[in-house]
């Protein structure tokens, strides 16, 4: 369903089309509008409708690049690496086991400094087989060097895919970017999304200018044996690129906001955090659900706000410290680093050490796709506020 509207959203300057569709279809639309030259993908539930849609755009002629139907996710990432290394804009999408199968090549893409953009639909890892949402697939790719975004609405998926190309291809970044969003809650749920005209995206992204490429006129060998001195520099350069991405993420978000009118935050989306005694931290679709919980608690006079974490890598350390100085923190993780606890919890704790002395309480929720409602989030927050929670605990394992 589509309709034309001026200034849809909160003050957009450009004419937009409103498209009511699922997260996957919106991601496909965004990817195609970014005009990648090569897409290589392999289907996996719940990503399938994303790659099917790109195939549809091949049929309609809206996607003019090459679409490689590979025989595995590993090969999908390899083909993206080959294409990106040949100097073209590249996109793919996957989920769960597909992402895990890519693992080796995720490192490769980042180390080779290839600005590949990928959507990952957060899905449970087996066994047993389970297609519902949790974030252990992408959390376990934390150290591959990829920039990681987590989205909480279909509009944010669209806007983040466009922003991701801009960020990845910046000559001081040149890193691959992963856009994560929850299985089904977003991937298969329709929401209205403002789609700008193609020209807006074209102007925003510009033509892709690779920083290096395979070129018969400049025969260079890429990725051959490298000694410790050289390799150490390569790793440092990657970390510097993440540092630069930290500077750019707010700039790009602001630029896009001025065009589209949509502000999803940069590293963090703040919701009713002013004067809050407590701040709830969450990622992904739980972030959206948390807003409802915050509203409910605010009605009851509880001074609580939400900091929805949008970028997991680079880690928004300074933002964590800022909110840690202001309020006590409740952290919700839909993932588990077994033997330690929630990934976001440990990130926040590590950021705050010696910098802020907020009380931090963490909750593991919704693994295996177990439903997490605003009422659950309210219950969690109240338990934390009343001082009845442990430093880290599981919520809802036996309930329901």
């Amino acid at each position, binding site marked *: 369903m589509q309709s034309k509207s001026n200034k849809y959203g909160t003050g957009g300057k450009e004419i937009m089309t409103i498209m009511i569709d699922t997260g996957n279809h919106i991601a496909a639309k965004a990817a195609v509008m970014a005009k990648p030259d090569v897409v290589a993908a392999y289907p996996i539930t719940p990503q399938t409708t994303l790659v099917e849609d790109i195939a549809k755009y091949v049929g309609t002629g809206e996607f003019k690049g090459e679409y490689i139907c590979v025989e595995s996710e590993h090969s999908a990432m390899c083909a993206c690496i*080959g294409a990106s290394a040949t100097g073209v804009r590249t996109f793919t999408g996957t989920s769960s086991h597909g992402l895990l199968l890519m693992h080796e090549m995720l490192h490769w893409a980042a180390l080779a400094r290839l600005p590949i953009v990928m959507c990952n639909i957060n899905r449970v890892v087996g066994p047993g087989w389970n297609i519902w949402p949790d974030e252990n697939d992408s959390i376990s790719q934390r150290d591959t060097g990829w920039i990681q975004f987590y989205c909480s609405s279909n509009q944010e998926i669209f806007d983040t895919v466009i922003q991701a190309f801009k960020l990845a291809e910046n000559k001081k970044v040149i890193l691959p970017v992963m856009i994560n969003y929850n299985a089904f809650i977003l991937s298969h749920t329709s929401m209205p999304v403002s789609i700008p005209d193609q020209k807006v995206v074209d102007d925003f992204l510009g033509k892709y200018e690779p920083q290096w490429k395979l070129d018969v006129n400049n025969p260079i060998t890429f990725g*051959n044996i490298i000694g410790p001195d050289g390799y150490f520099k390569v790793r440092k350069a990657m970390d510097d690129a993440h540092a630069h991405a930290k500077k750019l993420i707010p700039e790009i978000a602001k630029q896009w906001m001025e065009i589209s009118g949509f502000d999803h935050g940069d590293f963090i989306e703040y919701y009713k955090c002013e004067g809050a005694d407590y701040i709830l931290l969450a990622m992904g679709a739980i972030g959206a659900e948390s807003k409802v919980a915050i509203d409910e608690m605010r009605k009851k006079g509880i001074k609580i706000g939400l900091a929805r974490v949008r970028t997991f890598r680079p880690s928004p350390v300074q933002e964590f410290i800022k909110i840690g100085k202001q309020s006590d923190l409740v952290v919700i993780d839909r993932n588990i680093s077994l033997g330690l606890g929630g990934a976001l919890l440990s990130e926040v704790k590590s950021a705050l050490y010696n910098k802020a002395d907020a009380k931090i309480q963490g909750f593991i929720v919704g693994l295996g796709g177990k439903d997490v409602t605003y009422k659950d989030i309210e219950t969690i927050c109240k338990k934390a506020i009343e001082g009845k929670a442990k430093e880290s605990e599981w919520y809802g394992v036996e309930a329901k």
Partner: protein
Amino acid sequence: MAIKDFPVEECVLQGSAACPGCPATMALRVVFKALGKNIIMVVPACCTSVIESLYPNTSFNIPVMNIAFEAAAAGASGVEAALRVQGKKDTTVLAWAGDGGTYDIGIQALSGAIERGTNFIYICYNNQIYSNTGIQRSGATPYAAWTTTTVGGKNEFRKEMGDIIRAHHVPYAAQTCVSYPEDLYNKVKKAKKIKGPKFIEILAPCPPGWRFSMDKTVEMGRMAVETGAWVLYEFENEIMTFNGKSKLILEKKIERKPIEEWIKYQGRFRHLFKPEKDVKRIKIIEDHIDQMWEHYRKCYQ
């Protein structure tokens, strides 16, 4: 084309890190001469990823992308797609992998890339072992051969990779051997002109891996062909053509030499001769080669 007429320009430069007598560099020199400089090469983990030399130097005067062990064909698919988008139709994409990266860990990506009709040349230089990691068995290691992981000799026969490739109905597949540079040159040259996936396998006798003297690489390859243990052929438009001595063996115009003429010069088969001759296992090798030739005669003569 005769060797004297090969292009003079070398794309394998000085300073390669190859072992003396390395068949991979010998083959690469010929392959580069046949393909010219308008190529992009994709190299997975294999000896060639060492032969290239250390960053920031290179021993190849063509663009090279290194990629993970199992990934040559998939990486090449991406390169090929990107070249197509850029309208660079004349650039040849060459995936160059060892037998480990082809027969074993890379077979899925290779099969997928061929099935998708990727327009590239995939060359497997087959030294019948994982040589880069120090001589372990591969799916290409022949029966009874010693490796560090088949200490008493391998118990299984090698995979017939050629059969697997031909089952994909590729427009062009060929087997050649580093000891016959004209045969190699002509096959690569022909592959370059054909659209779609092309597969060429080069037998590459490895002096340290097979345990023979580094000046005997060419002889080891020749003897593999003359004993019928390795076959030179082309497969084009579903038609098999046997080449050189292999053609004469197929047509029974010459007898293939006894396998001992090949294996007795290789330390990897020493246990078949010392402390006493292992007649049983040598016969198993002979019978297996006979069966292979009977199969070829039945199917392709």
